[in-house]
């Protein structure tokens, strides 16, 4: 968990259903409100498809599938994309709603609760206890590594 010298972190936050997730702003390249996703047959379900990012092609990962969040029935909202850089590539994460950029202090930091579902816990680095809710900090490299996850599940 990297942080500024004074122990405060700036997190870009977003929602998946009622899960509040966050990524260090320094790891987020940009936010895209909507984009055409080209599906890729024969790829893991966590892969939503490809998008055209200013001429570059980025893989889009369906965070719902990754975190095992069941789609809610009123899926009216067009999902947004949080574009991160991982392993030298651009990867876009499909989320429900974009939240605010929050500055949080290290004193609110806690490791993931043991009661958390393991699919989520595996992909979370830690949590910040905010006033009203729990902010989960996402482990981007693990999140993006869909292939490893697929083999684990199959095992």
């Amino acid at each position, binding site marked *: 968990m990297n942080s500024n010298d004074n122990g405060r972190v700036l997190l870009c936050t977003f929602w998946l259903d009622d899960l509040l997730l966050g990524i260090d702003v320094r790891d987020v390249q940009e936010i895209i409100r909507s984009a*055409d996703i*080209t*599906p*890729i*047959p*024969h*790829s*893991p379900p966590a*892969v939503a498809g*490809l*998008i*055209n990012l200013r*001429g*570059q*092609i*980025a*893989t889009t*990962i369906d965070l719902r599938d990754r975190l095992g969040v069941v789609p809610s029935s009123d899926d009216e909202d067009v999902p947004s994309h949080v574009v991160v850089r991982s*392993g030298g*590539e651009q*990867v876009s994460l499909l989320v429900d709603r974009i939240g605010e950029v929050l500055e949080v202090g290290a004193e609110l930091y806690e490791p993931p609760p043991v009661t958390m579902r393991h699919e989520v816990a595996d992909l979370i680095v830690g949590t910040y206890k905010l006033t009203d809710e729990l902010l989960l900090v996402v482990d981007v490299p693990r999140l*993006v*590594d*869909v*292939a490893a996850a697929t083999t684990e599940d199959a095992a």
Partner: protein
Amino acid sequence: MDDEIIGEFLVECFEGLDRLEQGLVVLEETPDDTPTLTEVFRILHTIKGTCGFLDFSQLETVAHRGESLLSLLRDQVIEIDEEITDALLATNDAIREILGTIEQTGAEGTHDMAELIATLEALSARADHAGDLADVAGEADGGDGDSDIQVAAEPVEVEAEPVEVEPEPIEQAEHVEHVESVESDGPLPTEDQRIGDVLVEDGSAARTDVEVAAAEQSLGDERPIGRILVDEGRAERADVEAAAAKQRSAASSSIRVDVEVLDGLMNLVGELVLSRNQIVQLAGLDRNVDFAAPAQRLNLLTSELQESVMKTRMQPIGTIWNKLPRVVRDLSNQFGKRIRLEMEGKETELDRTILEAIKDPLTHMIRNTVDHGIETPERRAAVGKETEGVLRLIASHEGGQVNIEIIDDGAGIDADAIRRLAVEKRVVSAEQADAMNDQAAIQLIFRPGFSTASSVSNVSGRGVGMDVVRTNIERIGGSVDIKTTLGAGTSFKVKIPLTLAIIPAIIIRCDGNRYAIPQPSIQELVRLDENQRIEDVHGAPVYRLRDRLLPIVDLRSELCLEPSQLTSGSNVVVLNVDGRSFGLVVDAIDDTEEIVIKPLGRTVRDNPVFSGATVMGDGSVALILDVTGVAVSSGVMNAAAAVEAEAALERELASTTQHDDRTILVVGLNGGQRVAVALDQVDRLEDFPTESIEWSGHRQVVQYRGEVMPLADLGPLAARGGSAIDTDERVSVVVCSAGDHAVGLVVDEILDIVSKPEIQRGGDEHVATAVVDGELVDLVDIAEILASAGIQIADHVSLGV
């Protein structure tokens, strides 16, 4: 320390080390190759000099030791042999190691060179036994025997190097390097060796004079060649200066460019191609002539620019092959083999990224060949081969592809050994292994988890197998295949597309989405009209294209969508993979376009049917179909072979020519066994639904053309009391007749038609075997089958139901 200076130092050193390595391997073979020896010495000399200047003392020490040894060789005080070559190659490696640390950290770091230095010293100490050292320098006849040589006027100058720490007896006898102080006025060229060529070309000096001067140098004369020639009166000073000027201008006609800059250029051109596509598309829609002309010009310019930039990235395959002599040498020594490496087609050019990608796979295949392929000299002699094995590398262009072959005259690959190992390693089950023919068995080496090293050798066994080789090659769109003959040798054939990044492709549509198919894989485009239909042959959809049967793959099904209605009006793209054709049914065929291949991200890189993606003119993303992947995942290739064979059979049966009564039909039975039947006993090929097979007494029969025809199931499963018939819904049957009686031979697949096969008869005149593809195949006699089925010719009538 200035980074740029160090950067340049590193580049020059690495280049020099490559040449040094090659030179050492050559020298081991031909020790009296003076130019090579001189070059090798010079390289180490230069490295040593520059390190001292840059204060890399460890590097300098190692280079110095190596140089000392080399100078003894140069002076012919000692002779080169395997031990010395090993030590010098080790020095080369050590220098590389230190340079690596410098590259990473900017400083030398610490390296334990004690052992290497001790070895070099010990080898240099041989000179102690080689005669009087002090005389070497002054010898009028430097062992060359050429009495024309006036040995250089300067006496040996023993100058203690300021940085030298360990004075050795040998050092003092050396022609110690010192900066040339040229007495005459004006500069003389530094690239001595080449200037000799320029002078000869210009007619300013005679070839023999130049060679003599070069020989003098190798005996220890430190003067540049130009100087020697002038001093000896063999060339005019003015001519030498002119030649030097020429050299300098030749040297500056090429420049070094950072590879990253070239890659960046390539990317930009790629983006330009995309924009060009968009503009051309818009221009096509816009009737405005004013727009059309510049758009067309842009189109042309972009294509030319693209071609030129591609050229900058082309490098001859020799750049990776140049390392191989050493690799083969080291490995041969390690495994006690003697191998001659022959390379053809070194100048064949490939895109840089392809070279990078195939470097490791090629090296690995060569390691395998040296380790397992070529036998030890003793074994080779024992089977009558020359003790020196031959390893040939051949590279050539063919169409839009590069072919690289690795051919050896070794032991070949033993299909049985592969089968055993595959079962041992649980790559396949024993039954599967038995069922395979030899060709299929040999392909097992490409399976993951397979390594032919029965003990993990540290060269080719550890974790990297042929499966990784194949994956890496296929990842860049290439293919690797293998042919082998037991006892005679093996040949690997690698095919790679020439350029990676921008290719012409045909855009097709399927379920509203667009996909690109690379044009090189496309044979033709067909649209079915009303008269043509997709037929069904044993459950596989097939299309009759002229007189060939083409297996069909439905793209919709492959993409897990609702299957297409295969009707007239369907669009079929005929694709070719490895010489086999099949048809891909798509919804619609759009245009040809030049597309920029963008690789798939790590997450989806190993998708079986897509090899990349591209951005279309309108900004949408289209996936690029991996034709081989589609063929494999749809299983059409297996079907293709069977379909071809069946078609061949039909043609034979349909033709009215009398067959040589020795033409045979080879079939595969359920369970994998193969048998053959005389073709003139074959009537036709049929298939029946399993339900139509009935039992009559102990025999299976089927109603056929108003009669009851017995079925003969000769497969091993049947022999064991089971019946393979139950597994499929339909049963393939070769209807044979002898006299008025027909019997249906239950088969799994038609394999081949062989005319005039070699037939061997066993002791029992009813048992005959044919030799097909080097294997024995039982020849089935229809009368025998009928008899063993309990059907005597006369009894046939009683079977009627």
